[in-house]
């Protein structure tokens, strides 16, 4: 009896909360649309090209206007990897050779170079087209994970050793802080871009936007190394009952 009632009661409760969620959100948006005065979105879209040199306004916000948030979120990924390592300990690759079939492996080995190009493109063009460091970094991590899944953990460890990933992650994290400090050294403020005198270039071209491409590259490397080492930590354990 009680086993049947609990999920139903929870369902009703959740639906009521969802109705509240909707009504509150609706009310907030109506309050906001009734407000007069300049809108924040117009401030961003009219001046971001001149102020940051980046055509992609979302990237301009992430890597310039609110770059301090980005430092915080990059630190969250860094910490998550450190915590996973602290919880699970050193990964022990499984002895059993679990690989995909020959056909998949042959196919993948010819497609993989293309898989490498796509994330690099997304990272490099983060300031002029949709994309950026995070998106490209995640795709790059998928590449490493794919190598592990298709060719087995020992092969993956040989191609991209965990130590290399960890060093890349630490290096990129320190690089982010160093780029921020460069703004202070230039006489402006932490994580300053054009205000610190970095060249803006021609908006819309590959080399534009001051330090935004550099930050995109560092964040991309950091996210790629962080997420792929997370995969290695999580998968590097034969979670069998005999392990207790």
């Amino acid at each position, binding site marked *: 009896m009680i086993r049947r009632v609990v999920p139903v009661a929870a369902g009703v409760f959740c639906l009521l909360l969802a109705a509240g969620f909707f009504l509150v959100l609706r009310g907030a948006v109506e309050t906001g649309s009734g407000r007069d005065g300049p809108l924040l979105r117009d401030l961003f879209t009219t001046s971001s090209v001149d102020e940051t040199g980046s055509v992609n306004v979302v990237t301009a916000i992430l890597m310039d206007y609110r770059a301090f948030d980005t430092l915080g979120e990059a630190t969250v990924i860094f910490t998550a990897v450190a915590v996973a390592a602290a919880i699970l300990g050193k990964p022990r690759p499984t002895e059993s050779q679990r690989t995909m079939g020959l056909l998949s492996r042959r196919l993948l080995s010819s497609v993989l170079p293309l898989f490498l190009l796509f994330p690099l493109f997304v990272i490099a063009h983060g300031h002029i087209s949709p994309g950026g460091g995070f998106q490209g970094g995640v795709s790059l991590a998928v590449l490493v994970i794919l190598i592990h899944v298709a060719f087995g953990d020992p092969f993956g460890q040989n191609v991209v050793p965990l130590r290399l990933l960890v060093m890349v992650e*630490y290096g990129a994290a320190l690089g982010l802080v160093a780029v921020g400090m460069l703004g202070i050294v230039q006489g402006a403020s932490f994580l300053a871009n054009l205000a610190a005198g970095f060249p803006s270039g021609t908006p819309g071209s590959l080399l534009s936007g001051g330090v935004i491409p550099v930050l995109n590259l560092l964040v991309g490397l950091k996210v790629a190394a962080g997420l792929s080492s997370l995969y290695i930590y999580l998968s590097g354990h034969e979670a069998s009952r005999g392990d207790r």
Partner: protein
Amino acid sequence: MSHLPVLVVVVPIAGGFLISLVDLILPSVKKAAVLAVALSHGCVLVLAAFAALSYPPLMYVPGSWLPPVGIALRVDSFSALFLILLAVGHCGSVLFRLGSEGSRQWEGKTAALTALLFGALAGVVVTADLFNLFVFVELATVCTVGLISRKQRPDSSVAGFVYLMIAAVSGALLLFAVLLIYSATGTVSMSLVAERIHEVPAALHGVILGALVVSFGIKFGMVPFHVWQPRAYHAAGTTTAGVLSGFGMKVYLYALFRLLWGPLQAPLLLPEIFPVLQVLAMVTILVGHLMALLENNLIRMLALSSVAHGGYILLGLAAAGDVGADAAVAAALFHIAAHALMKSSLLWSAHHAISLARSSRIVDHHGVAREMPVVMAAFMVAALAIAGIPPTGGFFSKWLVALAQGSLLPVLVIALGTVISMGYYARYFVVVMAKRPPEPLRQVRSRSILSTAVVVVFAGVVAAAGVAQGPLQSLFVVMAGSLTGSGGLP
């Protein structure tokens, strides 16, 4: 130096990265690196705090972008107290760990996670942007989970999982509140939200406020969201529990103060919330103390006492609902500072007792005081202070919180809480002062002077704070004035 507000965040974060790197390539200098990071963070924090104690608050805009497009950081004399507490906590915990643990405990991620946690907490203190606050609160959550479950024991994973689940709900509520504020006011900068919040209908304002109170209530252990705390502190161990309870919890209370008085303008626009908070605070005090009385494990007992003391601080906050009630905020600040020192001193001296008895169960601590009189004397002084015996600082902070109350019931709750807490600390003293240990204790490992000194100094400062309570109180009133906007003038 004008960059201090951002340095208090960047120095420990860069330090956390650096400690991880040193751990990987040059482990022999790790201790020196950890100490250097803690001391430099402490210096930056203290410098920023003293710069902020002069009247115009320090403002900083990373990237030179003013709000609304950029993020602003703000340090005023109200945040100065918390910056000083974080400096004491970071340096104190690192010095204590240097003195108390063998070289084996220096392996692993604890040092890096501690530095990152203090960076995140400093970020919560200095930020004047709601979304930036969310980012640093989540960073602090991730660090806390790591510190809770780093020991790779079964119960530590469970404690970490419980905390993570409840913290995920807290984070979702915080993000939801930020989303509502942004869609209703068109900005996430705290000062601009404060100017526009009066346009928001009262019902919506109430929902936002409720979401934020529950979100931070989960983090500082308000009843009924306190269930994670005893389990987590027990799994984290005494050193880390001292950091989380003494300093982490205070920063979440700071965020609640800051949000209610700053962007939400609760005393002006929604004073109805304060009686509700008062009831929650009284329930928190009673439930925390009663559960501590029933507990037979020292760390869990101290954790539940932290729950109760979060309630005292909340009671001070609730009494400050009248506009310009600086005395109540000052009382809450006094209790925040006193509890930070008392609870970390208690937990860290308990560390010695637990490593001596090889158990955290109270019954196993028979005769511990005879083996380590200095540490146990410090424990006793801190316990007298936390129970509220005059003339310690703990007595005056509780007394001021009681004086700020407008009605009799909260005062009775405070008095009852004091009696209960005297009960459970007295029970522990009876055990540790017992004549003969029932079985031979472990061979005493050499405790360094450093870790004993940290505990003794913390307990001594709290005891001495009672003597200097007059000037301290006027300092806290000035700090409270910079929160409520009265400038500390009577």
